[in-house]
């Protein structure tokens, strides 16, 4: 039983990581209907920025964290301006390909710039553990869970309660109509990329003590975050969180109770099963095309 709870908690922590990355997908998807395959790599870059500010330049952890997130936000805007904006309004497939290309580019460049060793960031909560009875919970994992819940809540409120959030939803439904209604679509898209990159940066820095900073970490985690976003229905912020947690728990349970090898494929098997039964994900809703 204790094993089960321990696995559950570490699954949830892992799942929150997926959830955070999935959140980035969902944000961009909600506002621009673009699927950003480079999201995992943005997270990786966030980790490297964090490493640069905290470990190399020796900033205070929290200040370095803030710098990394701010740098990521700027980077997100630049990436949007350079590669995404020229093809806004073209078929989805082109944009998917561009983000795949961007991901490749970032991954190799990070490898070339920062090298391919595992890097580590020292954090105030690297060592601490929380003991509840005989249950041992590491602080770094708890910090990820807490950050995910806070970010999800904030972003959910942002999208549903603020004018800018409404503008984002409008421009995803019909970009041209939103533009004619006076919504500055380009700026909206730019802001959403900044937010999404900042979320990815947060995830990257928080993850640093758990997974190390390495140029391939984005690919590995990003590909796990996809099933999470799809399970959650791709357009739903709470869905991303739930999907992420589901995938994380499935993965950690499969790793513990099933033979070796299942851990890595179990999330995908579950994903395929869900897609078969409910092609629009658990939280998505499917609207028929009108003819």
């Amino acid at each position, binding site marked *: 039983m204790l094993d089960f709870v321990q696995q559950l908690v570490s699954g949830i922590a892992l799942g929150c990581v997926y959830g955070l990355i999935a959140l980035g997908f969902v944000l961009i998807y909600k506002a621009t*209907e673009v*699927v950003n395959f480079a999201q995992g790599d943005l997270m990786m870059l966030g980790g490297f920025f964090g490493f640069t500010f905290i470990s190399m330049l020796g900033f205070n952890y929290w200040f370095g964290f803030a710098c990394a997130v701010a740098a990521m936000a700027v980077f997100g805007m630049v990436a949007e301006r350079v*590669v995404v904006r*020229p*093809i806004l*309004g*073209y*078929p*989805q*497939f*082109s944009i*998917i*390909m*561009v983000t*795949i*290309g*961007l*991901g*490749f*580019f*970032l*991954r*190799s*460049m990070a*490898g*070339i710039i920062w090298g*391919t060793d595992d890097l580590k960031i020292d954090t105030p909560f690297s060592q601490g553990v929380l003991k509840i009875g005989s249950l041992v919970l590491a602080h770094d994992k708890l910090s990820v869970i807490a950050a995910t819940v806070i970010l999800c809540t904030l972003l959910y409120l942002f999208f549903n309660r603020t004018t800018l959030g409404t503008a984002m939803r409008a421009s*995803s*439904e*019909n*970009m*041209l109509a939103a533009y004619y209604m006076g919504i500055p679509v380009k700026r909206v898209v730019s802001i959403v990329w900044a937010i999404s990159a900042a979320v990815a940066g947060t995830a990257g820095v928080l993850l640093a003590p758990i997974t190390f900073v390495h*140029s391939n970490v984005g690919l590995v985690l990003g*590909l796990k975050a*996809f*099933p999470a976003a*799809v399970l959650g229905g*791709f*357009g739903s912020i709470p869905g991303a969180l739930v999907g992420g947690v589901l995938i994380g728990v499935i993965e950690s349970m499969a790793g513990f109770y099933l033979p*070796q*090898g299942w851990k*890595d*494929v179990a999330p*995908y*098997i579950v*994903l*395929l099963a869900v*897609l*078969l039964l409910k*092609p*629009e*994900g658990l939280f998505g809703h499917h*609207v*028929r*095309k*009108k*003819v």
Partner: protein
Amino acid sequence: MRFIFKTDYEDDIRLFPHSGYVWTYGTLLVLLAIAPFVLSSYIMSQLVFVCIYATVGVGLMILSGFTGQASLGHAAFLAIGAYTAAYLQQYNVPFPVYFLAAGLLTGVIGALVGFPALRLQGIYLVIATISFAFIVEEILARWESVTHGNEGMRVKTLSLFGLMIPRDSPSFYFLCLGFLILTIIGTLNLLRSPTGRAFIAIRDSETAARSMGVNVALYKVKSFAISAAITGFAGALFAHKLTFISPEMFTLLLSIEFIIVILIGGTFSLHGAVLGAIFLVMIDPFLTYLKDDMPGIISGSASALGASKATASNIQSSVAAFASANGLKGAIYGFIIVVFVLFEPLGLYGRWLKIKLFFQLFPLYKRATFKRQKIYVKSERNR
């Protein structure tokens, strides 16, 4: 400009609309036939890879380009073909039999993947195919009694009717080239018959296709099966070319390479698959060139421009370090994808058409002829 006067319905069915095509492709065929006796063995080896990649490209084109179903799982189909061939070869099954088996088995598995894919669209389909590819990769690594797991499998030299065909012999090249040509002709045949038109109809409007009597589900499954089968056949040849296969060769990266093939070549025409394959295979020699020659050339030109010896050798070593960095290939792939999607969305074949038109219409060519129209797609969710 050439005007073609059509006098018979046959004129629209013919593969070569006029004699110019016969001459062009005839010359190309002759050049390809004498290539192994003229070109170096390294280039021949690259040409074999071009043939194999182009075959997969044609297969992927049928599914993604003509039926409109995206797939990032074609590496898995290639793997299934390659492993089927390698497995059957152990039991001394003759080449024609295991070659067919590789294609047919992959085709059947492609059809099985096609069924769940029927209900999925766009991004969901992309992710489902990625998931499928991961599962296959994991099975290959774990099913050790058949696949030897991560140790991989050796593939013996191809023997056809008692003749040995080594992987770098001209005969092997002709085999791959022949299969590519057969695939292209078969695909062109398909495109001028009801099945090919049904594929295109599904790509452009499923609702309308259905209301015209196209069994959308059946044709999607057919498209998956044909595409997978072609890739499976290519997989058998791929296994022979490499002589050793292991699960880590068939990763997502390879699937993305196949997408690059059709994306760079141009997704709307079979020419694109071949041009894209040539381009992709050329990246490796280009990288080698970068590593070996570029540092010398750059530092040479720097010293010619008046840089001191120390600076020149400094430049040489930093360029060399950059060119031999591990991830450079990934960066180049990424860069190429971005540049092509942004600036050359019709691919290399599209560029060729533009150049051709420029000379045909000279001096009346209008830059706007090929201008891409923004469509500002409304939400794809409401489909």
